[in-house]
């Protein structure tokens, strides 16, 4: 599987994969990488396979009973992959049951393939890797190379022969020899393309014609899916493992893919695409915009909000200046940014004075004013100094002056406290009564 990332966008592309471990390979596995798009194969979009153990037991039982009766078992395989898996399966079974019937492997590619498996043991399952020093699983004791002359040998035997669909080569040759005997058995462990002998035989055809000769197919034919593709459960498992924002299904039958598409949309609530060959799918992704922020600004903000116990209800506010200069976009301290750019900060202050008819000493008025402001502005730090002036948030100043009858209340604030300033002014113009 490939995880491709460009900027903020990412996608995961799978080839064929298998979510259940088998004898020589570990299961597919993916990080929770949350790609924007997961492109997955969906060969078995609707199939849910029964347990592998059952299938294996079934397979072994069939081979065993056939061999016991003196029959010959032909297993057409492709050189790599399933062949090794089935070999390990039979090898261990033969060892355990102490069977003597010979198992053959068609010469050539497969033998070389086993050699590759021995050298690339690091890519096989953990268990095989762990024990390879004592016993390399790909060095088979019971499985010997096959020779064409063995075809007519009497007695039971099991033969793995290529190719897997019985369309040419050794496997077909053996099949033609063994087909007329009902004691023999053919086990097809994988999918066969329509038109191949394999497909026909699996379809139940009992008479085949070769070179104008009729071949009676009397041997028992069994299909056992040892195909390694992930089934529908496996595909869903992969989706839940990597948590993509969108899924695209490729490879499979349209109707079955539709079913899986629906299931993915329902279960995960994400978009699922299924473009036909040649069709373009457009997938929209929304991403945050990356930005470089000065560490001092970030740290100062952190120290302001006190990082000790993060409070999810209390937002941490960052004030910064976004500066775009010589191909760089940076978020820096506003004051620094302005001085860097030669900009001078301009301070705008308002002072507005309201006259009120209010009898009594100035200090009394100031006291009442303080009480009123305090009751209205609970969140604000308010400082009441001895000379009768009230400071709010350090920058807003309220001062009372005047004589016994009328008082002048001056409110002074900076432009950045504009909302507070106009609120106070509004408040005071309605009198001092609370």
């Amino acid at each position, binding site marked *: 599987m490939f995880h491709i990332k460009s900027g903020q966008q990412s996608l995961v592309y799978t080839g064929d994969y298998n979510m259940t471990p088998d004898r020589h390979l570990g299961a597919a596995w993916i990080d929770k990488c949350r790609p924007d798009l997961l492109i997955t194969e969906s060969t078995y979009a609707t199939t849910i396979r029964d347990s592998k153990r059952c299938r294996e037991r079934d397979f072994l039982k069939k081979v065993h009973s056939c061999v016991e009766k003196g029959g010959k078992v032909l297993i057409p395989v492709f050189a790599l992959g399933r062949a090794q898996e089935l070999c390990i399966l039979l090898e261990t079974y033969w060892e355990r049951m102490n069977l003597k019937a010979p198992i053959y492997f068609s010469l050539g590619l497969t033998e070389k393939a086993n*050699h*590759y498996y021995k*050298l*690339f043991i*690091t890519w096989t399952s953990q268990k095989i890797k762990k024990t390879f*020093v*004592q016993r390399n699983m790909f060095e088979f004791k019971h499985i010997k190379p096959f020779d064409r002359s063995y075809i007519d040998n009497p007695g039971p035997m099991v033969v793995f022969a290529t190719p897997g669909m019985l369309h040419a080569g050794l496997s077909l040759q053996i099949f033609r020899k063994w087909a007329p005997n009902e004691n023999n058995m053919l086990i097809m462990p994988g999918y066969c393309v329509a038109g191949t002998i394999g497909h026909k035989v699996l379809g139940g055809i009992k008479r085949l014609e070769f070179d104008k000769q009729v071949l009676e197919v009397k041997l028992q034919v069994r299909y056992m899916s040892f195909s390694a593709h992930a089934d529908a459960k496996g595909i869903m498992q992969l989706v839940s493992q990597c948590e993509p924002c969108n899924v695209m299904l490729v490879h499979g039958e349209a109707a079955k893919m539709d079913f899986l598409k629906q299931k993915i949309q329902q279960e995960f609530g994400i978009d699922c695409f299924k473009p036909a060959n040649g069709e373009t799918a457009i997938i929209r992704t929304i991403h*945050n*915009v*990356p*930005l*470089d*922020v*000065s*560490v001092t600004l*970030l740290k100062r903000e952190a120290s*302001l909000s006190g990082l000790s116990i993060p409070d999810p209800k209390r*937002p*941490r*506010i*960052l*004030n*910064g*200046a*976004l*500066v*775009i*200069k*010589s*191909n*760089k*976009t*940076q*978020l820096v301290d*506003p004051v620094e*940014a*302005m001085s860097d*750019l030669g*900009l*001078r*900060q*301009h*301070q*705008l*202050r*308002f*002072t*507005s*004075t*309201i006259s009120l008819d209010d009898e009594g000493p100035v200090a009394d008025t100031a006291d009442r004013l303080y009480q009123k402001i305090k009751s209205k502005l609970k*969140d604000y*730090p308010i400082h009441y100094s001895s000379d009768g002036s009230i400071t709010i*948030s*350090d920058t807003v100043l309220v001062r009372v002056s005047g004589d016994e009858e009328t008082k002048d209340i001056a409110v002074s604030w900076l*432009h*950045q406290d504009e*909302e*507070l300033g*106009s609120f106070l002014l509004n408040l005071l*113009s309605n009198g001092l009564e609370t």
Partner: protein
Amino acid sequence: MKLLCLSGNHSKPCFVLQFKGVTIMMDCGLDIAQVQNFLPLPAATNSHLENLPSWSPPSGQSTQLQKEVSEELKECGGRVYVDGALEFSPPEIRMVNMSQIDIILISSYTCMLALPYLTEYTGFKGIIYATDPTVQIGRQYMEELVTYVERSPKSKVASKWKTEEIIKTLPPPVCDAVRPMTWQKCYTLHDVNSCLSRVQIIGFNEKLEFFGALTAMATSSGVCLGSSNWIITSGFEKIVYIAGSSTLTTHPKPMETSPLKEADVLILSCLSQRPLANPDSMIGEFCMKAASTIRNGGNVLVPCYPSGITYDLFECMSIHLDNCLLPHVPMYFLSPVSDSALAYANIFSEWLSTVKQNKVYLPEPPFPHAELLNSGRLQNYSNIHSGLSNGFKTPCIVFAGHPSLRMGDVVHFLQLWGKSSANAIMFTEPDFPYLEALAPYQPLSLRICYCPIDTSLSFSQANKLIKDLKPRHLVIAEDYLNPPLMAPHRADLTIDWDLNLTRTRTYKRGKILSLPVKRQFERIEIHPKLAGTLEPVEVKPGSLITMVTGCLTGKDNKFVLEPIPDDLTLKRKLKAEGAIRSYIWGTLQIRTFVDALAEEGITDVKVAESGDGSIIHLPSEDTLIQVEPDSTHIICEGNETIRVKLRDTLLKCLSKFYKIYTKRYLSIYLSIYLSIYLSIYLARN
């Protein structure tokens, strides 16, 4: 950023790096050389070692303590050795709190043998990162060590001699023991398994993320199977740790240098321990001398580790024997882990040099020792008692551990063959001084050949590499600035990069360095919704600015700036705390302002100069405006309508980081957005 140096042996390094709140240990080497203070552990009964006299203190006076000490020490040829369970010198573990270590990065299997001391029983909770061959071969080295120590058990731990007043009265080599109080007994197999279960296996060039704060990547260093250099980055700063590296072509995958370039800090350790010996000529000499010994009917003993250069020795030796027409001379390889050491080498093809790697596609085993084993020319045994004697043929070449000559099967062979001058012992491992290693066995008659093979960077290779890599700062061992003790006049055997040493920092055991890396920027993300509201203003050609106020959310050390929630009370609260700020800049042009006021219908304006600025009087509105270059003060009499009108007019005349909707700016915004995206992608290259 801080760097702690925990190891005194630069070839078995151990560092702790503190950066961005993450504490990373780099390597965890075990200084095995200290075992040379001990008597060898015999592989079989050994009369020579058993009959050595106890040490007797020089002066007649003997206290109780001295008596006990003399029982712990044995004398041999004027030197004394500790007779007790072998002890090893782990890194300076007391300098750090192991439970605070988040991560351990391992560079090669030779630099990890102290791991069980540090990860077990210390509260360590972090993760160890290493490549697959590093873990597998490292495990073999540890298992070998444990097996050697456990198979000749000595229950008694000698500790009396370590007392400070005693140790200085003792003869060499014991008197030179480095901090014997900190030595520890060998760990057990259980410790090894438990320790290695904490390892996460990584591949070369795989990007690892640590807590969202740092990323790290291992690249091939070319010195042994799976050996790596480490690159730690924060997105802006880059720290490169070069442990054992080799620019020579041997069996491992070649060193990759380009990712190591232009680091802010380059930490360099593990330079060649034998800079005077050329590895190529040493291996040639080794083969020649071995063959000549064989030809004269003698046996060759090669003390070795189970992996590494040993593979090359098998290969070169077998070829040389063929060339000398001695193809039937058997090679024996003895190590408790010889089976797996030989088997693993042939399955690690992706970690091998191209030549070796190409063989597996044939498919053939990459190392010739697979073929040598099949043909019986190379035979491996786990020890001398496991069937070696059946069909043991001489003359032969025996490869056996341990190269310290203090344990393992080599002890047996040294005693078996030491008396005959026809035989030879050939040292190839550079970790131990060979004369010291041999001292307790003296007198010996066998030929002694010293061909140390150390493929690590020599000083000239290191100097060239540093020049190529162009780091901003270099951190090296203090000793690398001066020529080595054995060649004090060889000024070329130093690191010579930065004449004034202004950009060089040095480390030694126990030192804490402050590294000159100042973090300036951090990558965060802006929510697209907030980004969409930003409207940068061009204040100078090519320079744009806008104020951003957002809500910062941090998760896993990743920060996102989001719009402030649309909640009026919250906004008020934030304003009250001064968390949200706005900024105005510029100087008010009186003329412009007066014109603007006129447009708003305010015509009764009187302007008076005062100092730097002016005072504007609006008699009909009873309002005074003090204007100075950097400030304006509007003083009015409670009339909000007029104040708001004045405010807005004034702001129009000043530049302000508020939305200004004009056609001119709209076109700029478009180009800005393009440039933001462009610069982002350029920065990501």
